[in-house]
């Protein structure tokens, strides 16, 4: 599974990244976590507001930081 956290480096993006990490640890998943800060990649996914979470090429959330439980639902 490939998980991408998109954000130019704002505090909310870091919060999303740490939430995702916790979710991965809790579920004991084998997943590849990538941080994307290149804005042209955002456009490719059609993402306008950061931070955003993309799981296996599908945009799950954009523009807000979801809670850990919400992230777990998408990773299962």
């Amino acid at each position, binding site marked *: 599974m490939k998980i991408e956290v998109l954000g130019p480096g*704002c505090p909310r993006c870091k919060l999303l990244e740490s939430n995702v990490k916790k979710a991965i640890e809790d579920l004991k998943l084998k997943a590849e976590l990538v941080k994307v800060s290149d804005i042209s990649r955002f456009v490719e996914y*059609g993402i306008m*507001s*950061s931070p955003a979470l993309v799981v296996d090429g599908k945009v799950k959330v954009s*523009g807000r930081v979801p809670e850990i439980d919400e992230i777990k639902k998408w990773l299962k």
Partner: protein
Amino acid sequence: MKVLADFFKKNWVLFLLFFSYLIIFLWQRQIGGFLSQELVQKIIGESVYNGWLSLVDYLSAHVLMCLVPAFFIAGAINSLIGTGTILKYLSGKTKKWLAYIIAAVGGFFLEVCSCTILPLFAGIWKKGAGLGIAITLLYAGPSNNVVTLMMTGQRIGWQFAFFRLFFSISFAIIIGLFMEFLFRKERYEKGDLVVEESKLSLKGVKSKMFWAVLFSLLIVGTAPIPSNIKYIAVASFATVQIAMTFLWLKKEERTAWWNETIRFTSDIIPLLILGVFLAGTFTHMIPKEQFQKIAGKNTLLANFVAVGFGAIAYFPALVEVPIAENFMKLGMSQGPLMAYMLADPVLSLQGMLIISKMIGKKKMLVYVGSVVVLTVLAGYFYGMMV
């Protein structure tokens, strides 16, 4: 203990504010007695002392009364309305004229810093409504928002604040249309943008009342009315607001609102405190006469220098207000002051580099050129008018 630690970690900005006010309260009442103000001035030096005094002045009660409701409004807009409601108008499916207006005014309701504006810009340009509207948003986004408007009005003057708002909304549209016209031959790819719709449980009359009371709180907190009437009005509006929040909003919505408000506050307050202090300290070191020679009169050159300074110097959101206030105290004329306030949030070297990488040097130069020309002229004419 863990709950307490978590609470502190999330809400540390509240403690920061609390201690700042405690120290200022003690200072103003000279508690301790032995630390006389003259002695403090001698120990820390005149410039640092001046920085401290401007901080005390800034964190006064009337600033708090307008900032706190503004933070809650910004938080509510972000968490309860959601950016999606506004962004869907910019995704390319709306009428062009409406999209321009939404992009120019929407910045007022979207809390955008330079860090969130760039993905927005790139998305709207490449896959949404096009270059012109993206430029409009790029210009209007960082300069207009509830908090900056209130702060500018409170510290520099309401006439000034409203003219600044008027100028930046109209310039946003003018520059957007100009660039759309200039580069009309270039095509952009069409595509779908991800827009998250909000799912607010408030609807109809309830929703109208909720927002009406929230904005009344801001207006009453800021309005120049006698303080005893003001405190009563603020307290009663706040009570109604709290009651509505607990009766009508779902628990998740309340948490989301609180979290957004706290996040917004912790993004801005520490930098603002530092900015006010440093601005007060350093402007005290600037020789007044030389400063007035450059910026004391409303000339085209003075306006140009003010815009240039705004472009070179980079200050975090909202810190441009104390900087401008200090310039005003040093004797800057109203025209250059307006030019500076219009240019500073929009132009920065770092921003220009990133934009140029995205849209190319030619478009970037046209954009920056039109911003410079319009802001210099606006400052000049505003200075002649007042």
